[in-house]
Structure formats: C-alpha cells, structure tokens
C-alpha cells in the first residue's frame, strides 16, 4: 500500500501553487508541484476552483492523475487587497492662444522671425514684418508660391505657421528662407493682427530665444514686471525645437498646482492631514510621523477619497465585515511624471506634469478560508486542513534554500503587496505586508511612457529591451548585438522591442531604448527596492537591516531579470546576504508555502 498522498496548496494574490507529496514516518517524499491562476480574490470562497485545479495539475504532473488524495493542506491566507490611484498635481494652461510650443517632427527653415500675424488670404500690402498663418487644406506648392510672390511685391515675410505637415516642403521652396512651424492643428485659433515670434532651431538643437525669459523680453520689448509674468511661457517652451509666441493683451501661460484632495493618516495617538499635491515625499513623511499606521482616509469628493473608498468596499465584499471595521494599513506614494495635453494648446502640445501614484492596502484578520476548505473537501472528497500562517510557513519553506541560515528573512514581491517575514534565532516569526508591488510598477511604466496600453507596459516590465536595427540584427539594451540567420518579421523593423520568450514584441513608443529602460528601472526601484527596504525594516530587530543576516527573495518577482539584483544591491551596504530562494534546492523561488505546509504536516506526524 502506498503512503498517504498529501497536497499543500498556497493561495496567493495572483497564483495558486500546489505541492504533492507522499508522507509517512520517514517524512515527506515530494512528487510534483503545480501553478495555476488564483480564482477570485484571495481568501474568498471563489478560491476553491483554483485550489482544485492546482491539486489536479499537481497530480497530473506526478503522473498520478485521479489518484485518491488523503489530505489537502491550505494556508491561512491573509487577505490583502490593494488599490491604485494616480493624480496629476500640476497643469499648464494657455489662454488666448498665446503660445505654440510643440515639437513637430519636421519644422522648416531656421532662426527667429518676429512680425504681425496675417492670414494667407490677406497677404499683400502689409508694411511691417509679417508672420503668415496658413489654414487647413492649403497645398505646399501654392503656399510657397504665394509667399514668394508677396516677398517679390515687397512684403516682409519673416515666418510662417502651417496647419499641415508641410514646413520642410514650403521652406525648401522659398526664395527668402524663414522659419516655418507646422502641424498646428488649431491654427484657425491663432490671433491675427498681433505681434508674434516664431523660432526654429537647427536639427538636434532646441530653441534659445523664446525659451528664455530675457529672450522673450527683448523680443517683445517687455518691462521687468511683464518679464516676470511671461517667465512660465519660457519655462514651458524649454526643450522644444520650434515655437510660436503671440503677444496678446490678456494672454498668459500658467503653471499651477491642482488641489486633488488630502489624506488623513491616523496612527495610534494622532492624525495628520496631508495634501496629495504636496508630493510623495510629504505623504510618506506624514505616514512616518504617525507610525504605526492605523488607518487612512481620503477627503470625500476627491479622487483620492474615491480610490480609498473603493478599496474599502472591496474588502467589505470579501470579508463580510462592516465598512467601519476595515482599516487601511499601509500606503505607498510615488512621485511620477505623466504626459498631459496642455489646456488651450493649438497643436496638441503635451507637457510632462507632476503626478502622485498611490497604492493602498487593507488587511483583515478574518479570512474565509474555512469556506474554501469546505468546498475543496466536497469537490475532492478528502480531508482539508487549514495550516499555519502564511509568513511563518513561507519562511520555513525559504529556509530549505541551500546556504540559508537562521535568522532568515523573506521578501515576497507580488502583484499587489510586498510581504516580508523574519524567523529569528528563537524560532519566532514576524510578518508584514506593505502596499505597492508589480501592478504599481506596470502603472508607472504605462503612464510615464504615455503608452495607455497595460499589456505593453506589462511587457516592458517583464522583459529586456532591444532595438531592431536591421532585418538581421538587434542591439540589446546592454549594447550587445545579436544576429539572426532568418529575417525578422516586418512589424518589428526599426522599432524598440521587448525580448520575450515568444519573440520580439514592438513597444509603441518613439523614444530611444535608453529612455524606456530608465523609466522601467526607475519604476522598479521606486516600488520594489523602496518597499523591500521598508518591509524589512519593519520586521528587522530594532528596525535595523544590519541585524537581518540573510534575506531570501520569493515569489514571481524573484524570477524577474533585474529586480533581485536591484534589491540585493540596495541591501549590500547593510551587510545583508540576499539571494533568490531555491526551495528544497529544486523549486526556485516558487512553492515555498506549499512545500512548507507539507513539511510542517510531516513534522507533526513524526512528533505528535
């Protein structure tokens, strides 16, 4: 007769892992493990389906499909629910169409032209210098012809602003070259009869005069007070290759903070209100001041308030606890920059505005794992037991990594939260969960690159980058070059791509590899590295990382191609040995809890 078949199952936020083993007096003999997506929110009865699938898959992997299971061991899952929100906290507003500061791919001509704005149809007979404004539907040959004729007739044409993508074409056909700015979608809103300046920098350079407060002052003969007022214009134009500034009586460019609501962070003894528009640093500082955090609420009627309420509502659904009993136990705020279309812009200008991303986390002690256990028992017709606390079991599983020793800490970087646990020399464990993990990284990448495509952002997060330089070679982000015998598919030609196991996938950005890579690494650093340190500091003896000894990284993110190294680098100055878990020397950073459950069960059998 075969020894009893035991399956340990770990229900995680995104994956459910199983470890099948035969257990007898000699201890457990592990047969196989499996991985399947978690069904429903962790800690709810919907998990049962995923548990059954995971058990079935593990048995199939063990070549014992349909075998009779003696016992299924479930972890006591701590439901941790996280929510994400992002608030833009600065904005640029242009009034009276005073400024066009965009980067058309191909402006025409070079230099600075200052004159009065005139519509193409009205051109002729003007006295002073003129800036010609050309509306939609004009042909480049006709425009160039009209400008040349006007110049011949004695009009001092000093610049042109076009609707279509025709600047180079028009500039190339002018008898007297002037700067030309094109692709101004709302060109019909450019005020006519006003003094305007048009500047185009040579290829690869940025404008000098209009992007400088005193340059603007000289151009428009401004006094000191007026110069102070136009300085936001100069700032807004910095870094562009071409620009138009129109001097109108009331025209202005403002650069302002958007009030987006405040957070009330409450500790055991006091509460502090902090405005989200003060930035991530201020929010995190406030949380630090009230530590340990008891709850957080958002100002009602604001987006932040709405986001925190949504997290709370989900938790009410999951646990059945009343809303008043739900507490937000951690918040991570991260500063970020997002591309935003400028209000009042004429050419769809985009400015990079400050934003704050927030991850919040709710935790409850009450889980509904018993309901899961009952359903699994009914489905599989076997005994189902709810085992130890997640953090404890994980740390025991991690200890089976060859080379690890007590005291040992684990960091499990998941999708919604980053978890840390410590097993000290006395056999005691402490565990914490902090808000912010993989999903926040994806969101940061998505918004900072302006992708608006979660799948693409996920791909950037997970895979290294490369640039396809020809049909037969790519340059990887580490500048190594890889050649191919067969031509690469046409849709990746010339593009920045992610290098995935399924092949090269184009990233829909027009930025160089280096810029995308920086965004990716910064997002990971600001979430995973910051959170690993934050979580470890909470479990470390006296909050000192130096006293941790060794740290084992677990979970899906420990399989990431760069996160483990980034975390290890950050821990190195504290004298901590940090590495990727290898549960039982075979499982890698996966299966720590599932295997840990089986081990604990076997140990209990031997020493009742």
């Amino acid at each position, binding site marked *: 007769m075969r020894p009893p078949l035991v399956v340990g199952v770990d229900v995680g936020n995104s994956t459910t892992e199983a470890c099948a083993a035969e257990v007898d007096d000699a201890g457990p003999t592990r047969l196989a493990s499996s991985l399947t997506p978690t069904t429903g929110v962790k800690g709810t009865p919907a998990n049962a389906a995923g548990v059954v699938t995971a058990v079935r898959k593990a048995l199939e992997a063990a070549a014992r499909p349909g075998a009779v299971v003696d016992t299924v061991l479930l972890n006591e899952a701590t439901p941790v629910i996280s929510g994400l929100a992002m608030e833009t906290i600065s904005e640029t507003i242009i009034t009276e169409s005073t400024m066009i500061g965009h980067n058309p791919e191909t402006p025409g001509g070079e230099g600075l032209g200052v004159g009065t704005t005139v519509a193409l149809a009205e051109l002729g007979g003007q006295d002073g210098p003129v800036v010609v404004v050309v509306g939609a539907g004009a042909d480049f040959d006709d425009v160039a012809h009209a400008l040349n004729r006007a110049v011949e007739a004695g009009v001092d044409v000093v610049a042109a602003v076009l609707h279509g993508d025709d600047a180079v074409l028009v500039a190339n056909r002018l008898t007297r070259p002037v700067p030309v700015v094109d692709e101004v979608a709302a060109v019909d809103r450019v005020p006519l009869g006003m003094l305007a300046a048009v500047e185009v920098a040579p290829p690869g350079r940025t404008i000098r005069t209009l992007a400088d407060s005193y340059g603007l002052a000289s151009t428009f003969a401004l006094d000191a007070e007026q110069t102070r007022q136009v300085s936001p214009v100069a700032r807004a134009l910095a870094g562009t290759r071409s620009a138009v500034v129109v001097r109108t009586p009331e025209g202005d460019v403002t650069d302002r903070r958007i009030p987006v609501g405040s957070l009330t962070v409450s500790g055991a003894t006091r509460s502090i209100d902090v405005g989200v528009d003060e930035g991530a640093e201020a929010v995190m500082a406030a949380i630090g001041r009230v530590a340990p955090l008891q709850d957080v609420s958002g100002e009602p009627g604001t987006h932040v308030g709405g986001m925190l309420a949504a997290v709370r509502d989900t938790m009410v659904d999951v646990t059945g606890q009343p809303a008043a009993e739900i507490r937000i136990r951690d918040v991570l705020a991260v500063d970020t920059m997002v591309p935003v279309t400028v209000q009042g812009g004429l050419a769809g200008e985009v400015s990079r505005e400050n934003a704050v991303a927030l991850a919040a986390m709710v935790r409850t002690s009450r889980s509904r794992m018993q309901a899961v256990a009952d359903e699994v028992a009914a489905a599989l017709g076997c005994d189902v037991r709810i085992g130890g606390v997640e953090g404890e079991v994980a740390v025991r599983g991690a200890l089976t990594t060859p080379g690890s020793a007590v005291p040992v800490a684990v960091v499990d970087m998941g999708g919604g939260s980053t978890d840390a646990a410590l097993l000290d020399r006395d056999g005691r464990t402490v565990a914490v969960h902090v808000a912010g993990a993989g999903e926040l990284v994806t969101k940061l990448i998505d918004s900072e690159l302006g992708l608006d495509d979660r799948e693409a952002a996920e791909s950037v997060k997970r895979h290294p980058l490369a640039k396809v330089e*020809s*049909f037969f070679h790519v340059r990887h982000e580490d500048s190594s070059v890889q050649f191919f015998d067969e031509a690469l598919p*046409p849709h990746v030609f010339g593009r920045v791509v992610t290098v995935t196991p399924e092949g090269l996938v184009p990233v829909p950005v027009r930025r160089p590899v280096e810029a995308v890579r920086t965004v990716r690494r910064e997002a990971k650093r600001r979430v995973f590295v910051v959170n690993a340190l934050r979580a470890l500091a909470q479990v470390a003896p006296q909050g000192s990382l130096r006293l941790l000894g060794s740290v084992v990284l677990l979970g899906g993110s420990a399989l990431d191609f760069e996160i483990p190294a980034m975390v290890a680098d950050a821990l190195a100055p504290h004298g901590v040995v940090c590495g990727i878990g290898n549960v039982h020397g075979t499982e890698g950073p996966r299966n720590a809890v599932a295997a840990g459950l089986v081990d604990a069960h076997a140990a209990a059998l031997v020493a009742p």
Partner: protein
Amino acid sequence: MTTATGTRTLTLREIGPAERGTRPEEVVIALSPAFGDPFTKTIVDVPHAEVIRQLLAGIEEQGGVARTIKVYRTADLAAIAHFGAKLSGSGIAVGILARGTTVVHQRDLARLSNLELFPQAPLLDAEVFRMIGANAAQYAQSRSPRPVPTRNDQMARPRWQAKAALLHLKEFECIDHARAAVEVEPVITRVD
C-alpha cells in the same frame, strides 16, 4: 490635408538604365509598366501626377531623397517593389501599380513579405500617398514611423472589384519582357 489647386500632368523623362543607388537615405519609387503611360490616374481617378507629387513630398518633408524607376518586365507589385528595394541605397522602396495599389518594401525581406501593404487601391487618396512617402523616408533613415492607418471598406468589392480586374489585365498588356527597367525623372507640369 493639402489639395492642390489646378491640375498637373506627369511626364516620366528617361534618364538611363536603373542602377543601384549609393545614398544611404534614399527611397526608390518603383513604377509599374502602365504607370504614367499609358494610364494617367488610379482606379479612383487620383492623377498619377498627384500620386508621385505626394509620395515625393512625403519623402522630402522627412528630409529624405528619392529616385524613381520604371519597370517593364513584370506587373507583379511584390516583384516591382522588391526589385526597387534592391536598387535602393537604403534598401527601401515604394512599389506602385497604375491602379494605385502600393507597397513599402525592403531588400532583405522575402519578395512576398513587406513593411507596409496597401492592397485596397480604391481607398488610397493623396493624403495616404503623402503618408506612405513620409514613412518610406523614415524607414530609410532607420527611424520607426507609425504604420499608415489602413482603411477598409467591405463595399469596395461591388464597386471596384471588376474595374480592378480590368486594370490588372490592361497593366499586364503593357509588360515588355524585352525592356529593362529605367531610371526616370518625374516631370510634373501644372496646366491651368
């Protein structure tokens, strides 16, 4: 989008045999046997003069340079474009049939592959030809253009399928196996 005033005619002035170019950023425009002569407009009456003018404008706007060749030995679009790509200094060519069907090709690709294909000639207007030219120039400069949005119209079949077949047959009639490809200078003259 720009709509030219007045009408223009296209003359293809023969310069000499079509040869391989050396400028690394050049785009070759490869024309089919019936393009420009004897035909003068696409299936939806876009004048060939305008097709060429917009392709060249798209290339020029992106800072590129173009050479135009005319092919006589085949009326197969893929073959025309691939032949052009092999002569192109950058390896990029735009192939175009008299009825307007267009493809952007690269010399390292298989003949039947492509960078961008515009199979529905009835949906190609001056604006699209401008964008095709601009994209070809960007490919030639190793930049990453956004592919020209493709249009689709299920009702193109009842209106244009037979005329397309007719034009295809006429184009095949213009194949001259004895005549090698030539480089041409497109001369666009305004007549009004």
